[in-house]
């Protein structure tokens, strides 16, 4: 990362609730261009919820989310559609369309939004599949792929139109350490070679240390952001909950929170 640090996304005072259940409040942070930002926190603290609201799949109860100069919270559906063309998202389950082959899944954004010829699209698809290590598998159905392969397929689809920002929801959850390390490596390579900004939700300590340029840790019980910084800074932070997370410690129930 270079010194200037231009923010591509700015989240301010985000507040989210489901009915009476206030899940996020007081969330403010920036995503800088070209960085890998990791969002971490205990299970159920609202990481996926935060990601869904950065993508404006649901409107928050308060606060703003800016992408460039556009406030997504107040943007129209058409504006959102335009903005989302800059985004690629890898959902927790991969979210491949089960009725299409892997190749058609990856080709879908290109077929819908570009005027590329079918031949070019096919080349593009095999290029992206090659990148995620699924070369030659375009004709398989998602049900014929393992969980890790589905995730990589989802990644290929997310990157097919060269997004500016890639979002990942727990990319390595449920993967074995080797596959998960390979995925981390892929994330780093994509970031370095294509300069894609990345927002990654994860709990995996090895992943965090491997990929994160910066991390923010969400607190449980709508405590806002507990800590923000490089993995090493968080690791040595004085905050008991952050410490416990990074050292895999059990936190005494009635200890400080």
């Amino acid at each position: 990362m270079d010194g200037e640090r231009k923010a591509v996304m700015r989240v301010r005072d985000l507040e989210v609730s489901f009915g009476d259940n206030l899940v996020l409040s007081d969330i403010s942070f920036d995503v800088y261009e070209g960085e890998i930002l990791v969002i971490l926190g205990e299970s159920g603290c609202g990481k996926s919820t935060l990601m869904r609201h950065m993508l404006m799949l649901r409107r928050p109860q308060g606060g703003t989310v800016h992408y460039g100069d556009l406030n997504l919270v107040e943007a129209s559906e058409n504006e959102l559609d335009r903005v989302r063309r800059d985004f690629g998202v890898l959902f927790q389950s991969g979210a491949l369309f089960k009725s299409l082959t892997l190749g058609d899944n990856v080709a879908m954004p290109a077929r819908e939004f570009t005027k590329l010829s079918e031949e070019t699209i096919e080349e593009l698809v095999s290029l992206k599949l090659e990148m995620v290590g699924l070369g030659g598998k375009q004709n398989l159905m998602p049900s014929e792929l393992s969980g890790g392969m589905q995730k990589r397929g989802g990644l290929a689809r997310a990157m097919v139109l060269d997004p500016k920002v890639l979002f990942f929801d727990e990319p390595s959850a449920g993967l074995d350490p080797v596959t998960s390390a390979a995925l981390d490596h892929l994330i780093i390579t994509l970031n370095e070679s294509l300069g894609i900004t990345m927002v990654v939700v994860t709990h995996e300590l090895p992943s965090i240390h491997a990929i994160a340029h910066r991390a923010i840790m969400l607190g449980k019980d709508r405590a806002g952001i507990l800590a923000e910084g490089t993995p090493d800074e968080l690791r040595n932070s004085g905050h008991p909950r952050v410490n416990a997370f990074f050292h895999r410690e059990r936190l005494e129930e009635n200890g400080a929170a």
Partner: protein
Amino acid sequence: MAHTVTHPITIENAEKSYAEFSAYARDTGSETVVFDLAGLEEIDSAGLAVFHRLQSTLEHDNRRLEFENIPERVRQLFELSHFDEPSDEIETPPPPKNELERIGLIALDTWQDMRSMLGYIGRVTLALIWSFKYPKKVRWGDVVRYVQETGANALPIVGLMSALVGLVIAFSSAIQLKQFGANIFIADLIGIGVSREIGPLMAAILLIARSGSAFAAEIGTQKISEEIDALTVMGLKPVPYLVIPRIIATLITLPLLTIFADFFGVAGGMVIAQFSLDVSPTIFVTRLGEAVSLWDISSGVMKSFFFAILIAGVGCYRGMETSGGAMGVGRSTTQSVVSGIFLLVIADSIFVVLFQYLGLN
């Protein structure tokens, strides 16, 4: 004064131990009930539960439970189950207090649900009109596939059911007609009844059962596996992408299925006319031509266009509203059939009144 526990407390003798301990607690009557555990060699989770239960009953009467001489192993178990702290409140959503309140809440829920469902169908209808203005944007390939699924594949069951219903209606009216010597009017009865009501309703009910539910299940599954979110972030809106092709397909198939059902319903009636009422097919068909007006048939077909939007709309709405995993998909599917049939009957009643009121008979 402490009660000395000498035997193990395990799953085998838990109830007996509880009876023993609570009898002791009752007999002493003192504020603090003390147990000496020096001789307790074995205790399992059921045993812990016994003490927890005793503690809650005592707490209820503002009394306390205490232990003496707790062996090390038992102490660890006690710590694990947080014996020293007051037991946690079990979190429950505050239940509405009385039945009346519950009925009111259910009614409100149902009302809300109906409103948002009808709102959704309204919005989808607008999108449908919009898509007729820009037919290039419609995914015709999907439309063809759904026409096949909702229409062609439904022909056997629609034909069979309609024929059987025509048969049953004709059979049950045959006796009365014979009493008045009005055998020939079987053609009027079947012709008008089937073309106006039985045909459209049979076709619609089978569409709800076969396709409305399938829409809810398909879209619901896509919803819970994040496919809908994936579509949205790719800029492909679920309504034009998933809903509109299904609605156009049912708009094509339901009127055709209705005519098909009309035909088989009448054929069923004709069989009974021949065998129970001695009305030959030739006479039946001739009479049918005199009795049934074009309006009878076209009003039924016209209704089916509305039913098609309603049924596909409900199915898709239920799918889009799905949450809560595989169980949620099941719930949505059931709901799509229940609210589909409910709305169908309401809509049909409105048509009956409307036609009557407009003098279209």
